[in-house]
């Protein structure tokens, strides 16, 4: 029975997206809250029943997987879905009461775009058909272009540039799928794996591999193709970048993992792509570069975006080490990083809710004015730096461990360098937040209770994932 129910995780946000524009504004608002709650409980329910019996496949339309389209539910997919749905729920709780101020008449359409974005993220995680993956990719891309374009004047330019680069990336991915399809004929990941297993892989599979990697690196915003990312998430409205920034890059990174390792085995990738360590060096260079930039930023959001870009290079670097331990570190980092970046963005949203801007010069003495929010932001920053009890430390620990085992010392050093840069950034930030014109601020007016609840939840999730990282790692590997 639970196998049949599991498709609801895609259907509920879908029906929500369709119904929202038909309803009145506040009904739609609270319906979207209910929808996000439903998805979270459903994801937890499916995950709990996967825990005791093995992963299962869902054939859409009742056709076997080589004929129809199939979804694949396994442990890590569901953990990622739980993280996504909790981010969706927390964003809704945080922003719902003042959505109508931000969006006014566009509210219901925004809600359905948001629901479609999350539906496509769930689809991307679960689908086992590489062309279906392309269609989900297009839905998530199109909804992110529209959501980014909700911002002020500059958001249109950012959205158009993101559109062009995103479509080129998706089409390159489609071309890669075309080469695979021409050589092996089927579109399902597991069918492909059974065909590819005992075959010597020629030039065209190498080309398809490179094209898929190029396409997904473009979608992920890895170092050479990252121009669109800072602008897109900076000029889009805060309520959009809060849920989109942590998720969209992580999902495309997860796609890289799913498609490449679903179809080919590690040894096949290694001999197909001998210079795979090039990507590790590329990631090291980009981590050093973004680490250096993150100090010179004068706005909280820009600083967090530099950290986000550095975290993406952690992912590519630890993926391309292609060893067992570094791949499980890669998947753990996906989970912990989306939570950390989400916590950071929620704190910035709370600060901008009261303080209207997150430039350093406007943040004087905010520690006194909003003690709870700044404390949460400092905790999120400490987790990004890698303080032990929180998940940032464990994800860095596992990645560096994987890197050292494979003698990639420079990559490990770059991770430490970037956390050192973050320490220096906090070194710069602490006096501004806590001590400058401390006397002038009399009362401390903090964010309303629901925002405090969301902040507390996101920080507790960091501690939770940190403390139970051991059992999480056993689940993942």
């Amino acid at each position, binding site marked *: 029975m639970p196998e049949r129910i599991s498709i609801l995780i895609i259907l509920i946000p879908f029906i929500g997206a369709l119904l929202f524009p038909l309803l009145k504004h506040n009904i739609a608002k609270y319906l979207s809250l209910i929808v996000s709650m439903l998805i979270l409980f459903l994801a937890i329910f499916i995950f709990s029943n996967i825990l005791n019996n093995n992963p299962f496949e869902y054939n859409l339309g009742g056709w076997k997987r080589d004929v129809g389209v199939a979804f694949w539910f396994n442990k890590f997919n569901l953990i990622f879905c739980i993280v996504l749905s909790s981010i969706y729920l927390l964003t809704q709780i945080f922003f719902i009461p003042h959505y109508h101020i931000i969006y006014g008449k566009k509210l219901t359409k925004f809600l359905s775009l948001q629901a479609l974005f999350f539906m496509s993220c769930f689809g991307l995680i679960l689908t086992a058909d590489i062309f279906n993956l392309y269609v989900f990719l297009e839905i998530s891309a199109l909804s992110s272009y529209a959501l980014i374009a909700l911002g002020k004047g500059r958001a249109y330019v950012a959205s158009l540039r993101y559109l062009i680069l995103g479509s080129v990336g998706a089409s390159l991915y489609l071309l890669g799928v075309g080469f695979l399809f021409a050589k092996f004929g089927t579109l399902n990941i597991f069918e492909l794996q059974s065909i590819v297993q005992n075959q010597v892989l020629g030039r065209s599979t190498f080309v398809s591999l490179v094209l898929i990697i190029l396409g997904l690196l473009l979608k992920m915003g890895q170092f050479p193709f990252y121009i669109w990312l800072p602008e897109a998430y900076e000029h889009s409205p805060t309520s959009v970048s809060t849920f989109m920034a942590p998720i969209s890059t992580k999902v495309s990174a997860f796609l890289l993992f799913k498609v490449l390792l679903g179809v080919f085995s590690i040894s096949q990738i290694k001999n197909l792509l001998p210079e795979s360590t090039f990507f590790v060096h590329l990631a090291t260079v980009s981590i050093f570069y973004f680490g250096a930039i993150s100090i010179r930023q004068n706005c909280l959001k820009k600083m967090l975006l530099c950290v986000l870009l550095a975290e993406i290079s952690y992912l590519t670097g630890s993926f391309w080490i292609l060893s067992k331990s570094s791949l499980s570190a890669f998947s753990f980092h996906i989970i912990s990083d989306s939570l950390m970046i989400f916590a950071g963005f929620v704190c910035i949203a709370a600060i901008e809710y009261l303080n209207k801007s997150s430039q350093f010069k406007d943040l004087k003495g905010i520690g006194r004015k909003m003690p709870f929010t700044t404390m949460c932001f400092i905790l999120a920053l400490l987790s990004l730096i890698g303080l*032990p*009890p929180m998940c940032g430390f464990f994800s860095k620990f596992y990645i560096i461990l994987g890197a*050292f085992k494979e003698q990639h010392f420079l990559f490990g050093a770059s991770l430490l360098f970037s956390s050192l840069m973050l*320490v220096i950034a906090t*070194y710069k930030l*602490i006096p501004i937040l806590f*001590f400058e014109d401390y006397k002038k601020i009399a009362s401390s007016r903090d964010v309303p209770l629901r925002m405090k609840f969301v902040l507390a939840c996101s920080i507790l999730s960091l501690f939770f994932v940190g403390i139970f*990282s*051991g059992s999480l790692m056993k689940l993942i590997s």
Partner: protein
Amino acid sequence: MFCVYYILIPLIVFLLTFVMLKVKYSGAFFNIVGSLSLIFLLFSSQFKLSTISIIEFLPNASLAFATSNFSFIFATLVAFLWFVTVIYSMGYLRTLDDKKENKFFMFFAISIFSALGVAFSSNLFTMYLFYELLTISTFPLVSHYQDSQAVSSGRKYVLFILGSSICLLLPALILLYSFTGTLEFDQAQLVANNVPRQMFLIIVLMFLFGFAKSALMPFHFWLPGAMVAPTPVSALLHAVAVVKVGVFCLYKVFYHTLGFENFYHLPYFKNVLIIISSVTVILSSIIAINQDGLKKRLAYSTISQLGYIILGIVLFSQTALLGASLHIVSHAFSKITLFFCAGAIYVVTHKKYISELKGLGYKMPITFSCFLIGSLGIIGFPFTGGFISKWQLLKGSLEAGQPLVFCIFLLGSFIAALYLLPVIFTAYQKNPNFEEASISEAPIYCLIPIIITASMSIMIFFCNDFLIEVLRVK
């Protein structure tokens, strides 16, 4: 099972003070009760060994606690001085009518919690967790006064220790784990057979300088900076808890994780370690001579005494190690007396510099006599605790066949006398324009702790056989 109780007490104190933040004096009350119950619990346990593992992060790197003789001694030291410092800081803060007293005590309790966590950790991983927690929890204490100078030194403190721990300690930890696959303490043979030679040297150096809290020479700048904190903080934390935690970690890593036998076939490398620590001893005591600020001078003397302890560890001989652990205890008592006296002087006369202390001895006889006892303890004069530990250190250096280190120990004590005794002489000089009677003895709350710690530093000399017997059995 008991070691978890010891650690939980300061945590409970922290939570209670946090909850009752608004209630006046609640912080002091909870801290006193907490420290007393901790002391009682430690003594009632008669050093029974027990281990417990709570959460399993990695195959064998879990959050686990274990008690050993040395950790018991260290914990009792910290607990006792915690009690004494709380009484002292009640007097200190009350006279300066500090409004944020409860916040002060709250962070005090959490720092003690992390110090005890390090003391009782049973593997390198837990020790690193609490080591980091200690850094974060002491930062608000260092920048307690919220003025620009406190903030800049507080920031420097965090940057130095957090930066060095991330850049040196974390990679060393991970390298060790990637080679030996375990972070448990007693894995000397594992290290011996699968850590390549030059990697072993790098790991040792990383650990040596990674523990920036032990204030080795290039990484010592944060300690004088942290003196800007209120005196009880610099007394307990920067004379006892924080720096001793750094040295404690060094002791655990060098003795248990890396193991003495791995160093025997590296004579050249042992000399390098000895040179580094002896440079710290000599150089910091020379700097201490021309420091005019009283607390700055005491800070540099702490650095040089820590150099003693590290030198004791690095000599890799049993008696030197015993001497080092004894020196931890005796130096703690005498140094905390000195800091208490400095605090008392500041409370009464708001004077920070030694040159201004002319003629104060007659006005504050008790404070300065205890100051004399404390400085004698530091110098290692007979009838004080310092003598015992220095005696063992000297015996250890001869046993390890390092006559040069023997002379350095003696030279160090001699220079210590050079920068501590002049303070007494200036205090007891005649000072013509110093008649006003307003200067009276320090408040009673400050005096009691000073007397207690001074007498304790003398008492160690007389009942040292108990300490030596407990420490020798490792």
